[in-house]
């Protein structure tokens, strides 16, 4: 069956559905921006959007190359600082949701944005943390958005930049951290985490894919319940907002 939406659009819509009205959301650029603005323009008009460097509730009319681009600060309500956003809002405990992407994640939702290869041997250094580690440590919950590939969903990742459930069970609490990842959204499926073992658990698969395909294209075995429903596809209204208002130049949607 032909679908009238792209995998990225489905991921953005699935991300938007995770956000509730009046929540405070810390966002990085790319798909999370699309998901957050979509939620705000539909079911969550009173949601607050934060960018780590000191931006609250912007209303950009042009797409930017990153958080440092003044295009994405346009019509913000507050322009301040790291200590304000990541300190007095995030570290204080006022962020409900953090959106995170990365190079790699493992079955406990630990994220690597630092390097690929062997950190003690030959490796390629990438970006590092930015605010990702801070968000992963202090947000009430985090949502991970990532391409569904074996080299990204791995049994063992090269470097834990941002902790998820660390080694599973209560190891996150023992490290003194609150929250933790609630969902992982890929272009094939949506995962949650088992309430006790904290292992990644398949929640739904996107239309057009199969459980076998989802499992064959990842580097570890998630918990698979007896019945796996199909992810709800985007609505025509959601697609129109993404294409016409949020990302008309397709800078974030690839």
């Amino acid at each position, binding site marked *: 069956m032909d679908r009238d939406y792209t995998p990225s659009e489905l991921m953005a819509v699935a991300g938007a559905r995770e956000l509730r009205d009046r929540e405070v959301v810390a966002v990085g*650029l790319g798909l999370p921006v699309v998901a957050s603005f979509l939620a705000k323009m539909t079911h969550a008009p009173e949601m607050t959007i934060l*960018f*780590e*460097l*000191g*931006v609250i509730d912007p209303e950009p009319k*042009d797409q*930017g*190359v*990153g*958080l*440092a*681009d*003044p*295009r994405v*600060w*346009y019509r913000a309500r507050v*322009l*301040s*600082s*790291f*200590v304000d956003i*990541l*300190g007095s809002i*995030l*570290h204080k405990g006022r962020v409900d949701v953090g959106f995170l992407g990365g190079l790699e994640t493992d079955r406990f939702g630990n994220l690597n*944005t*630092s390097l690929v290869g062997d*950190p003690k041997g030959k*490796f*390629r*250094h*990438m*970006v*590092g*943390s*930015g*605010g*990702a*580690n*801070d968000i992963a*440590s*202090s947000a009430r919950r985090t949502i991970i958005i990532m391409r569904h590939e074996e080299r990204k969903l791995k049994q063992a990742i090269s*470097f*834990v*930049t*941002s*902790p998820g459930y*660390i080694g599973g069970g209560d*190891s*996150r609490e023992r*490290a*003194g*951290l*609150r929250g933790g990842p609630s969902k992982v959204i890929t272009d094939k499926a949506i995962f949650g985490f088992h309430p006790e073992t904290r292992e990644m658990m398949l929640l739904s698969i996107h239309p057009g894919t199969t459980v076998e395909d989802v499992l064959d294209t990842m580097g570890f075995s998630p918990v698979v319940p007896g019945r796996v429903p199909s992810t709800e596809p985007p609505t025509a209204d959601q697609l129109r907002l993404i294409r016409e208002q949020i990302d008309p130049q397709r800078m974030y949607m690839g």
Partner: protein
Amino acid sequence: MSKVAALAEAVASVPSGAHIALSGFAITRCTMAFAREVIRQGITGLTISQCVGAMDADLLVGAGLVDRIIHGGGSLDRFGRLACVNRGIENGSLHAEEYSSLSVAFRYLAGALGLPFIPIRSLRGSDLLKQLEERAASELASIADPFTGEDWLALKPLLPDVAVVQVQIADQDGNAWIRGPRWDNAEQARASRRTIVLAEQIVPGETIRQDPERTIIPGLLVSHVVELPFGAHPTTVYGVYDYDAPEIERYVEATRTPESVRAYLDEYVYGVKDHQGYLEKVGGQQHLSALLADPVLGY
């Protein structure tokens, strides 16, 4: 005594081996003209800190002047990665202490407030912490909350020798306004022994007095004020000019190998006499005026 100085004079006040906090964030308000003059003067053995690594630090690393970097990771946003910093980390020539944005900001904040340490929730349970315990063990410690007994990670303050901050407007005493988000700049200036302000425009002190709530850096922290139009080029200064995308792309291309970095430095840094020469080199007034920001949009 006036603090107004020429760029060369302000740069010459920074000794080799100094710890410099730089104001850049990725491709925004980077201290590019300052970095180019540091390279021309050959000030070496530097420690550079900033919350998010930016183009100013990458250029200095590319020129071989930096021994140590303290930051929370960084990039040139969609333009690319910090190729010189990354190469230095990969081949071991750069001592990198990698944190998160907030942990560097908290270290500046502790320095700004004169505190002996600051507790933080970030970094715990991560390989960033394990790596810091190997590379910078004297900068962090586990402590018990004296009131509840709860375990915390404590960080030492960051106390740079000098903060170098590119701003939109300052007066000749160094009272500086930063428009747009300020990321770590206010804490950098307060944590450092002194600050060099690089202003797109120097305005009369009376202008500052009419809107003093806009002053982010008080002049009492400042040793030098340099009037430096397009001082962040090719990066952007909110409300003044946009980034110069083709020139950032030229830099990204040039930083692919150490040899091409050298060729870039020869042409754009050593090959010009000063900042004015650089601005002529990249196209002069006609080219630069096309980058001027729309006053409503800010870019």
